[in-house]
C-alpha cells in the first residue's frame, strides 16, 4: 500500500495538480459563492489525473506488482483524498485572510467553519459517486466524473440558495453566537466525508476485484 501510494505521487499524479489548491485564492473575491473555488479540483484535477492514468497504462502496471487488487483502488482513492485535504487546507488559509479583509461578511455563505463542513460534504458526495462508478470499468472516466460533478455542484447550489432565501439559516450559519452550530456542521461534514470515502472504497474495490483486466 505504501509503495502504491509512492507510485501515485512519483509516477501517476503530475505535481501540477497540487497547484489547483492555489485556486482556493478565489476565496479572496468579495461576495462570491466560495464553493466554486473548491470545485476546480474536480473540474480540472480529477478528470486529468484519471485520463492520464488511462493513457499511461497505470492500472495494468499497478496490478502486475505484488499487491492486492483492492490496494490499487485504495491507494488511488487515498491519493485523491490527500489532494482534497490539501485543497481544503489552502482554502482554510485564504478563508482566514478573507475574514480579515471583509469583516462585514458577504450575502452568500461566508467561508467559516460551517462552510468547510459543507465543503467536506461536497467532496464526500463527489467521491462516493465518482469512484464506484469509475471502478465499474476502471476505464470510462467521462460519465462518472460528469455525474459526480453535477451532483456536487447541485449540492453546493442548494446550500447557497437556502442561505439566500432563508435569513434565519444564514444567521445560524454565520453569527458568532451560533459558533457551536457552525462547529457542529464542520464535525458532521468531517464524519460524512470519512464514512462516504469508506463506502466509496468498499464499493469500488468490490467492483474492481470483479473486473477482468
Amino acid at each position, binding site marked *: 500500500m505504501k509503495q502504491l501510494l509512492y507510485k501515485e505521487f512519483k509516477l501517476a499524479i503530475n505535481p501540477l495538480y497540487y497547484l489547483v489548491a492555489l485556486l482556493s485564492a478565489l476565496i479572496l473575491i468579495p461576495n462570491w459563492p466560495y464553493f466554486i473555488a473548491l470545485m476546480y479540483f474536480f473540474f480540472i484535477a480529477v478528470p486529468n489525473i484519471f485520463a492520464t492514468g488511462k493513457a499511461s497504462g497505470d492500472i495494468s502496471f499497478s496490478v502486475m*506488482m*505484488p499487491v492486492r487488487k483492492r490496494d490499487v483502488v485504495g491507494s488511488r482513492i487515498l491519493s485523491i483524498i490527500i489532494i482534497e485535504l490539501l485543497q481544503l487546507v489552502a482554502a482554510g488559509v485564504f478563508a482566514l485572510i478573507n475574514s480579515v479583509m471583509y469583516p462585514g461578511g458577504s450575502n452568500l455563505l461566508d467561508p467559516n467553519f460551517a462552510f468547510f463542513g459543507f465543503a467536506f460534504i461536497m467532496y464526500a458526495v463527489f467521491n462516493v459517486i465518482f469512484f464506484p462508478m469509475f471502478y465499474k470499468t476502471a476505464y470510462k472516466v467521462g460519465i462518472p466524473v460528469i455525474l459526480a460533478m453535477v451532483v456536487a455542484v447541485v449540492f453546493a447550489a442548494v446550500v447557497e440558495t437556502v442561505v439566500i432565501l432563508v435569513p434565519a439559516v444564514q444567521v445560524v450559519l454565520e453569527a458568532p453566537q451560533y459558533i457551536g452550530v457552525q462547529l457542529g456542521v464542520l464535525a458532521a461534514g468531517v464524519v460524512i466525508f470519512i464514512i462516504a470515502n469508506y463506502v466509496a472504497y468498499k464499493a469500488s474495490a468490490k467492483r474492481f476485484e470483479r473486473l477482468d483486466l
Partner: protein
Amino acid sequence: MDMLKVTNLNKRYEKFHLKDVSFTLDKGYIMGFIGANGAGKTTTLKSILGLVHADSGEISVLGNDFAQNEMALKQQIGFMFGGVDYYAKQRMSAVTDVVRRFYQTWDDAEYQRCLKKFDLDENKKIEELSDGMKVKYALTLALSHKAELFLLDEPTSGLDPVARDELLELFQELIEDGDRSILFSTHITSDLEKCADFITYIENGRIVASETKDDLIAMYRIVKGAKNELERIRPNLISYKKHSFGFTGLIKTDNLPGGMDLVAEAPTLEEIMIYHAKKEADNETAVI
C-alpha cells in the same frame, strides 16, 4: 519440481471459451505457448496471474496455490504483457525507483549489472526504447527482483530477426543454472524451434498438446498422396489441402494407415499449427 501447474482452467466469454486448460512447467525449462491470434494465450496468462477471473481451475506456482498466496508468489514472478507500454513519458530510472520498492528481494547490484549487460541507459524515457530494449528492460526488472518464473506474453513479436535471435539466446542463458523457468507465448513458430524445451499448443481455447518439442513433432505426420487415396484416409486426417496432384494433410502418427501409397514426413511446428487452425475453420464452415 513443478514451477507452474495449471489444472482445468475454464473461462467462458460470450464468444470464446477457455476449456479445461492444463499444463505443467518444470523448473529450469523454457516452455513455448503457441496458438493463433485469439486462441486464448493471453487470457490463459492473465488467468494465471489472477488478472482474469477463471470460472474454475487451479493454478499453483512453486507448489503453492496461487489464489491463496498471491502476494508472496507474485514476488517470484517476472512478467511482461504486450510490451512495456506503461508510463511511456517517464524515464526508466523513475519507473525503476517505483518498482524496486515493491520487491523484498530487490538487488540493486544485479539491476546495475543487467543495465550494463543489455546496454540500457536508465535516463532514457520508456517511449524512446526500441521494442527489443523494452523486453530487455522488463527482463532487467524481473532479474533484479530475483524472479524464478518468467511469464512473457509475445516478447518476440515486433522484433527484427537479429533482436529476436539475441533474445532467444538470452532466454537460454537465463535458465542455464536450472533455477528459473520461462513461459512465453508466441505465434512465431521459429522462435520455438530455437529455444523451447516444451511446447504447449492452444487452439480455440483448448490445449491440443503440451509436450516436449520432439514428442510434439513425433505425434504428427504430414501425409501426401494422390487424389484417389484421399477418400480412404480422410476420416483419419486432422485437416488437408487439395491441389492439382492430390492432397497434403496432417495426421496423428498413431492414425497413419498401413498399406497405402503415401508419403509421410515429420511436420514443422508451423504445419501443425496451420492444419489444426484449418480444422477449426472447416468445422465452423460445416456448422454454418
